[in-house]
């Protein structure tokens, strides 16, 4: 799907990531519970700078929670997370400074509906980084051009299609010059015909060297773009490794079972 859609109007080899060096992530023995419901049961994994890691697994397996622990939208109960030189799991970490280096893209886009597309991209650089309006506008237009939407800069988010909104959300995150991008099921809420545009932009971003952690059900994307795929089930990492290996030749029965269901949804397992 991704390869059939040309990248929307992006200069090849453009300075995608900016001058910021990509950041690595190290997660160790991470636990998270909501009351008595244990969602993450001791997750350990590392993401090298510039690496693209896809988190896959059934809903409820804990992948989104894991992703949201990385920028502390969720509070882990135990374990450590480091992002570049920030100890994300430290209660005293400067969360705002850390989050400025971590871009996040949500399933529901979460664009600010009271602001124009351009203002969505400039409000944080202006209000938090104290950039001048000219600087912020310039950077935002550059990022909107990268996602192919600069002509929609003056529109309101509700005038855009889902795919366009998600592309704006990516541009908005990039205006902060992040060193790591988190994607939480970025294409799950999209109409099928707009999924390709969003994946194409993510692929460009990956090729430009951005560190990316992507929670996704897009197995084609995972196989083609991810350096590594991590399969999660019931709060555990079941299997992790190069994309071709985990998706193409899974070793664990639970991974095999999941992939069979995802890749062949009409398959009925009579053993259940």
């Amino acid at each position, binding site marked *: 799907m991704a390869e059939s859609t040309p990248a929307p109007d992006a200069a090849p080899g453009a300075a995608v990531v900016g001058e910021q060096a990509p950041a690595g992530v190290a997660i160790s023995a991470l636990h998270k519970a909501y009351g008595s419901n244990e969602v993450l049961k001791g997750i350990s994994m590392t993401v090298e700078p510039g690496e693209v890691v896809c988190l896959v697994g059934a809903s409820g397996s804990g992948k989104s929670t894991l992703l949201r622990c990385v920028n502390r939208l969720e509070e882990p109960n135990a374990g450590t997370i480091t992002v570049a030189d920030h100890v994300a799991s430290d209660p005293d970490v400067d969360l*705002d400074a850390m*989050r400025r280096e971590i871009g*996040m893209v949500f399933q*529901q886009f979460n664009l600010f*509906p009271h602001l124009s597309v351009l203002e969505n991209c400039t409000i944080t650089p202006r209000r*938090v980084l104290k950039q001048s309006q000219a600087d912020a506008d310039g950077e935002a237009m550059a990022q909107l051009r990268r996602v192919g939407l600069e002509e929609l800069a003056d529109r309101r988010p509700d005038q855009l299609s889902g795919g366009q909104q998600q592309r704006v959300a990516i541009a908005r995150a990039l205006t902060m010059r992040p060193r790591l991008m988190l994607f939480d099921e970025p294409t799950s809420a999209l109409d099928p015909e707009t999924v390709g545009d969003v994946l194409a932009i993510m692929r460009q971003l990956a090729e430009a060297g951005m560190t990316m952690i992507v929670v996704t059900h897009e197995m084609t994307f995972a196989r083609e773009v991810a350096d590594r795929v991590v399969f999660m089930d019931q709060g555990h990492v079941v299997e992790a490794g190069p994309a071709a290996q985990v998706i193409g030749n899974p070793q664990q029965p639970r991974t095999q079972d999941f992939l069979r269901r995802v890749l062949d949804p009409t398959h009925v397992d009579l053993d259940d």
Partner: protein
Amino acid sequence: MAMTTRERARLSLGIQAGLFVVAVAVLAVVMDWQAIATSFFDVERIGPMFPDILLVGLKNTLAYTAVGFLLGLLGGLVLALMKLSSFPVYRWLATGYIEFFRGIPAILVFLALGFGVSIAFGWNLDSLQIAGVSLGLVGAAYIAETLRAGLQAVPKGQIEAARALGMPAWRAMVSIQIPQAVRIVMPPLTNEAILLTKDSSLIFVVGLTAGAAELTKFGRDGINIYQAGLTPLVAAGVCYLLITVPLSILARRMERRTSTKK
């Protein structure tokens, strides 16, 4: 033969219209229109009420309401933030305040400020202070609930997106949550303003000098001053409508705009 639903509805409408015409006709014949006109609509005696009805009555009503609304907005915002606080003592205090002031008649608050404060503290409050603070205290309780609902109506993902970009909590509230909440709460806040406009008449219980009279007091005094029956009360009522009807049209407009926007 059975009637269809539509025939029955038409017959029912016909009967209603007939009854209405009969009622109007009976009233027209039975009522003493002359007496009604002189006691309520003595047009010739309206002239002398100007300009005082506007420069004193309407002006004071607007002043009392405006001060009360501003204080109520301020207090209401503080109470709303307290209710949404993660610190339970704040929530309890806010809940207690809101239950108390929503649960008692506003007139008790006016009496307490008008008489109680001067007895207890020896302060002599003027009528603008009494009316403004009383309306503010009562209004804050209602406005707090409106604002809380408005702030909570902003989807959680909005704040998450702002925080994930690196905005501090206060900045996310100021730049993202409050602007969206304002659009949601404008129609109900306008309704609060209408209620406060009418409640400003309660200041009469503390006794007002002629210069401090708001519309209701002006109307009551006018009965003697202008010797025009109850016409001054009718005039005062019209003045209230001059404030409240545009406000309610405004509220409806904003409501329509926000509902088509989302």
